Structures are given as structure tokens and as C-alpha cells.
């Protein structure tokens, strides 16, 4: 359902491929549900962002739409952004690490090429091919990135075979010599008898939030709506790394309990423990202690609280965590 309020901010989200599901899920987790009438509609409202409109776009088109300004911000794989964004263009990365859709763009050759293990070999091979009157053909969906990468390795003699189909079979079928493709696990490459090149990792990618510099700097309403989205995303990403632990601990005074808790530096929490008296039936001196700690120290915290007599321990996942100011938003303002 589209809100009736005035349209303020247009957010492009992937409509296809492997990024559609993770992105809608991610946004929902951030409290930014996309309210799509039905799956055939290509627009949706965004909860809690008044005037926010999500547009479903092909993943390959999103960077271009942001650059040209037909949408204000967008979610896209960093690989796609690097491939399509233009020098001195208006597109900027607002949050580079949304922590999903992680993958690597790698160079791979036939396993049987035992003489080839690193980029120096590829460079050498390119020259050798040329001396034999052939060009080294590189099949990829990322011609710009791959071209820049090869040039930076002093490889100048090659042909890019632009392919959007299954690249892994290109060497075996003979329409390319090497491939540069996305690998998230490497299984597909191995199944097709390909091996990666040692220093041939071209790019590490994950989902990122991008925006049009000009549109955001020129319109306070758009900037404000963007700030709200950035804050939600930041709060959610931050919270995922922490647990909030509450325990009842016996002691003589709040001060004494706080001191005992602070003996473990990891238990200082983000600012320090919160200690409050518990008014129970048995009249004993109990204090409720609440700390926010890194996820990884779950067990350690539990053990320590028990060792100082703690009981009634609950661990919850905070939904959002915020510090005094939003770092990504501050960075965005600087970039504008």
C-alpha cells in the first residue's frame, strides 16, 4: 500500500536475483518494512519513513539510477557499484557494509594449467598468447572492474568477453581462456575444474547503501529521510554485535556490587553497569545488574555472574543500539 503523503525519498532495492530476499528481510529487521501491494507491483511504501518510496529495480541498474538521479538512494552489491559508477559521478557510498550478500570477485583458470598460479603468470601468459597471435580472453560480468584490475597488474593485452550467462563453463567450451567471476564458496569453480589465482582476488563485496550526492545535499527533506534510514540501519547493525545481560546478584550495597562487576573489564558494558536494588520478599540484599556486552562473551559473562552468586540471569538481543551521534550520518554530511 502506498502512503498518501507527499513523496520525499526514493529508495531503489533489488527486484531480482540473489539480493531480493536478503534485502527485504534486512530492511524489515531494521524496522523498515516494504509495504508492497502484491509481488507484481514495483513500488512499495516504507514503514516509519513518511514519504519514503521503495522502487524495485534490476540489481544491475541500481547504481545507474542513483548516478542519474532518478532515485535518491539505493541498496546494491558493492561489486555492482564499483562496476557501474562513473568517475566524478554523483553516486557515493553511504554505508559500505550492510553485512549480507558477501562475495568475492576472483580470477580463475583451468585446474590443468599447472604453470599458472599468480597474476604474474597471467601477465606472462598474455604476452605469450600475443606472440602466438592470439589474445588472452577474459570472460566476466564485470568488464570495467576487471579491465582496471588487469591494467594495474601491467597486463595490457587481453580481450574482455562480456557474458551474463554461466561463466564457469566458458574455458571448457573454449570461448574464453580465463574467467573473473563471483564466488561465495568456491564450490561451483571446483565442480567446473577451475582454480582461483593466488593474488587474483579482485574485489570483496557485500550489500551497501548508496546515494546521489547532489539530490541529498540539495534537499533537506530528502536528507532528513535518509538520516532516518541510516540511523535504523546503523542501530540494527550495531545491536547485532551485542547482548544485554541482566542478573540478580547478592551484595551489601549497590556500590559493592558495581565494583565486583567492574572487576571484569568486559562487563563494563558500553558505558558501565546499571545496578538497581531488588525489593524481594525474603528481605535479603539483592541487586539487579544490567550490562550490554559483545555477543562473543556470552558464556564468559554467564559464568562470572554465577561465580559472584548471580541468579535469574536473562540474556536478550537488543534490537537497536545507538551511541551519542550517528557515525555513518556524520560521514555522509562530510561527503556532501
Amino acid at each position: 500500500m502506498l502512503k498518501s503523503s507527499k513523496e520525499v525519498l526514493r529508495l531503489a532495492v533489488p527486484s531480482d536475483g540473489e539480493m531480493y530476499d536478503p534485502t527485504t528481510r534486512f530492511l524489515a529487521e531494521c524496522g523498515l518494512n516494504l509495504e508492497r501491494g502484491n509481488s507484481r507491483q514495483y513500488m512499495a511504501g516504507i514503514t516509519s519513513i513518511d514519504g519514503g518510496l521503495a522502487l524495485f529495480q534490476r540489481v544491475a541498474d541500481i547504481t545507474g539510477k542513483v548516478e542519474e538521479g532518478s532515485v535518491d538512494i539505493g541498496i546494491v552489491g558493492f561489486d555492482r557499484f564499483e562496476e557501474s559508477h562513473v568517475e566524478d559521478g554523483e553516486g557515493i557510498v553511504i554505508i559500505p557494509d550492510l553485512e549480507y550478500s558477501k562475495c568475492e570477485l576472483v580470477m580463475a583458470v583451468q585446474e590443468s594449467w599447472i604453470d599458472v598460479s599468480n597474476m604474474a603468470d597471467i601477465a606472462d601468459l598474455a604476452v605469450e598468447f600475443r606472440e602466438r597471435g592470439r589474445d588472452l580472453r577474459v570472460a566476466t560480468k564485470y568488464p570495467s572492474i576487471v579491465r582496471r584490475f588487469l591494467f594495474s597488474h601491467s597486463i595490457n593485452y587481453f580481450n574482455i568477453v562480456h557474458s551474463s550467462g554461466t561463466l564457469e563453463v566458458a574455458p571448457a567450451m573454449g570461448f574464453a581462456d580465463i574467467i573473473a567471476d563471483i564466488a561465495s564458496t568456491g564450490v561451483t569453480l571446483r565442480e567446473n575444474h577451475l582454480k582461483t589465482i593466488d593474488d587474483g582476488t579482485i574485489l570483496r563485496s557485500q550489500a551497501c547503501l548508496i546515494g546521489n550526492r547532489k539530490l541529498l545535499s540539495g534537499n533537506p527533506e530528502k536528507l532528513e529521510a535518509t538520516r532516518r534510514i541510516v540511523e535504523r540501519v546503523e542501530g540494527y547493525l550495531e545491536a547485532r554485535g551485542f547482548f544485554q545481560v541482566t542478573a540478580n546478584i547478592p551484595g551489601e550495597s549497590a556500590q559493592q556490587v558495581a565494583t565486583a562487576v567492574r572487576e571484569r573489564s568486559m562487563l563494563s558494558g558500553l558505558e558501565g553497569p546499571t545496578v538497581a536494588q531488588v525489593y524481594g520478599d525474603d528481605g535479603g540484599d539483592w541487586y539487579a545488574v544490567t550490562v550490554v556486552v559483545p555477543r562473543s562473551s556470552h558464556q564468559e559473562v554467564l559464568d562470572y555472574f554465577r561465580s559472584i552468586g548471580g541468579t535469574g540471569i536473562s540474556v536478550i538481543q537488543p534490537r537497536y543500539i545507538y551511541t551519542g551521534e550517528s557515525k555513518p550520518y556524520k560521514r555522509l554530511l562530510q561527503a556532501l
Partner: protein
Amino acid sequence: MQTPQRLLGMKDHGPGSARVMVQAGQNLTNFLSTYGYLSVDVPVLESTELFLRKSGGELASRMYTFVDPGGHQVSIRPEFTSSIIRAYLEQIDTGSLSYRWQYRGPVVRYEPDLLNSQRQYTQIGAELIGVAGPWADAEVIALASKGLSSLGVKGHSLVIGSLGLIGALLGSFGLSERAKLFLLSNVPLLKDANFGKEDIYQRATQLGFLTSGYQEDMDPYVANQDAKVLLDKLDGSDISVTGNRSVGEIRERYLRKQTQIQDSNSFGDALEMLTIVANIQGAPSEVLNKTRKLISSNAGKEEIDYISQVIDALSNYELDVPITVDFGLVRGIAYYTGVVFEINHPAIFGTPSIVGGGRYDGLIQALGGEDSTSAIGFAWALDRVVEVLLGSNEQNLFKDARDLVLVRAKESSAYGAAVKEAERLRAEGKIVESQISFTSLDESLKYAVDRGIQQVISVGAKGEAEESNVEKQ
């Protein structure tokens, strides 16, 4: 709607600098003509292959390359020489002994660093094809310098280097072509004693010219045995297993790689030697004496003698510029084989300098011509020449000395008579602007003052002309 902006690295020339650009260009073209260099013109667009053939690939990353609507891979020219040689080969006339050609036009290069460079600039250059030897070198170097002097440029200096010498020295190390090209392209870094060598060692290791720890640890015997088993298994495999390479090719390169690893010492030696030679520069006689003592190989000594002959030949042109010999001078484009030179001017910072050139005996063969054809050429970077001229604070540089006249009609029925009067004055050799829309005499006089026009003539319907003096207003 948004106004489309000028592209990064591109420049507009307003009437002021464009006038200097056109006139300086014309003067340089005329200057070359007095030495018998004939003007030729070649296309802006060529097949990408042409520029890749012998540029060592260095230009590849800086070319504007695209697939044209017909599906051909084409590039906008980043330089003229390759096109000139292609044209020469296409229309070669067996009767001729040598060719003196000149050209003028824009070239584009995608310069990543825009601090000191543009992406489009105009080159005027000359090529002397079919003649070798110090006298040919001297003529071309002299042209490059004297042309600038003929425009009134002062304060420039000439730097001469020798890729012949560098090539002869590198030749003794038995390096691969790729390793040689790498070293050559890094010579400019070697001249910076503080950071150069370390940086190059690091790059060379990354690119596999120098042994990295990983390869040292590998036991060649074990590796060879493993490889043998693997390769034997592969024998007779089809394309789906080895791609477009045969098992033989893979085996051959694998074995070559094993020996190459042991050769990485000579790469280090070559780098050491190059560091010393690249830092030799100074007055010609001094540099040549010093280098002669350093070099032991005959091939190297011959190259030094050759440069000394070029310097002697050059003295006959009586150049009025300081000359330096700098063996660390290698020009960016890898097709140069012998003498290379540049002309610098203190008003221009950074590279490229205002003139660059050199001998490129290998290019003609690389493009399919005869082995023995030699050639040398140079180009002026016209935009930089103009920058120097404009910086020499001559406001009226190349200004047309002829009188400027504004002809206006007194009334709308007098336009015909005014046009006739204007044509008559032009035939007398004056520069005449016609006022096309009706304006008062006062407005016309004001316009004339703004434009620097000396004379305003008002014409009546019957052709009567009345002159008003602009100065008096």
C-alpha cells in the same frame, strides 16, 4: 534541465588563447615546411590494434577505446606516429628514398592524474622516415628546438637520452622482453634515489620478476615430478580440460618457469646497473666521458660514440638552448629504440614536457613493414607551447595588425548599401564587421570601443558613407 558540463580534463579555448593556438600552430607548420616536411592528415579513429602493436601496452590503459556501431574495436588516437606509419606502409612508393612528413591535430589520453595534464591536447609533429644515422637525428632534434625559437619562445632547454645505450646494457642480462619493458618503464622512478629502488623491488616481486619466498621454498625436483605425473595424465585431453592451450604449451611454460626462477638474480643485477646509468646527467662532453669509463661492453661503447656524433652534428645548427645528456630519460611510449629527447620549459611543470621525440626503428616492422626501415620523429604539445607564450605576457601576441572597421546602416533601407561598402573595404585589406541589426550611432561607437575597433562607418540608403572616429568618444 541541467546544463551538460565540460568533461574532466578537457579544455575550452576562448578567442584570446584560441587565436594564439591557431597562429602558433600555423607558424610551426610553416616552419616545418621550410625544411621540406609535407603535411599529411590521418584519421582520428583507428583500430585499437594499431596503437597496441608496439606501444608496449603502456598506452592501453589510457586509451579511449570502444566498440563502434559496426562492431569494430576502435580507439581515438592517443598519438600520431602509429597512424603515420600505417599510412606510410599503405601508400609506400618504392621510388622514394626517404619521407619527410608533418601533421597537426588533437590526441586524447585518459590521464588519471589531472593535476598537471589534460586529456585532450593538440600535437604538431614531424617524422623523418627511411633515414638512419646521426645526421637524421640531429636534423629532427634541431627542428624541435628551432621551431620553438621561431615563435619567440625563450628559456627552454633540450634533454637528450639514449634508449640504444639502455637497450645494449640490458641486452647483456638475458632478460625476457616483459622484464626489459618493466625495467624501462620504471626508469623515471630510479632517478629518485630516496624511494625509487625499494618501490621497484616490491613491484617486481609482485609481478614475479624477482623470486618470492614461496617459490624459493619449492623443491624443483619434487615439483617437476608432481608436474610430470599430472601432465602425463593430461596428455591427449581435449579442450574441455586444458582450454585453448595444448598440454605441450603448458609443459613448456612450466619448465621455463622453473629456470626463470633461477634467473631472478640477473634481474636484480640489471636493476642495480640501471639505477647507476639512469642517474647520469649533465653537460654532453662531461656525461659521455664519465659513461665511457663506466661501460665495458662494446655494444655500450658504440652507443656512446653514436650519441657523441649526434651532439657534434647538432652543433652545426647553432641552437641557442642549453643541452643536457640524461641517460635516465626514457619516453613513455615503448616503441623508441635509439635517441630520445625532450624539451622543457620552466613555465611548464611536470610531464609531458612541451616537446618529445625519438628514434623508433622497430615500429615499422612491428606494423608489417620492412625490417630495415628506420624512422625518427617528434611532436610539439601545442597547448603547452601556447601556455608558455601566453605566460610571456605579450598581450598582443599574434594579433592581426590590420585595421578593424565597423560598418553600420543609417536606416533599415540602407542595409544593401552597407554590405556593398563593407565588401569594398574588405577588398582593400581591412577587417570589416557589419552591423546586422539596427543600432544608434552611439550604441555602435560603444560596441566599437569594447571590441577594439578603430573606425565606424555609417552608410545611407544611397551609399553615402560617413566616418566617425572612435577615439574621440
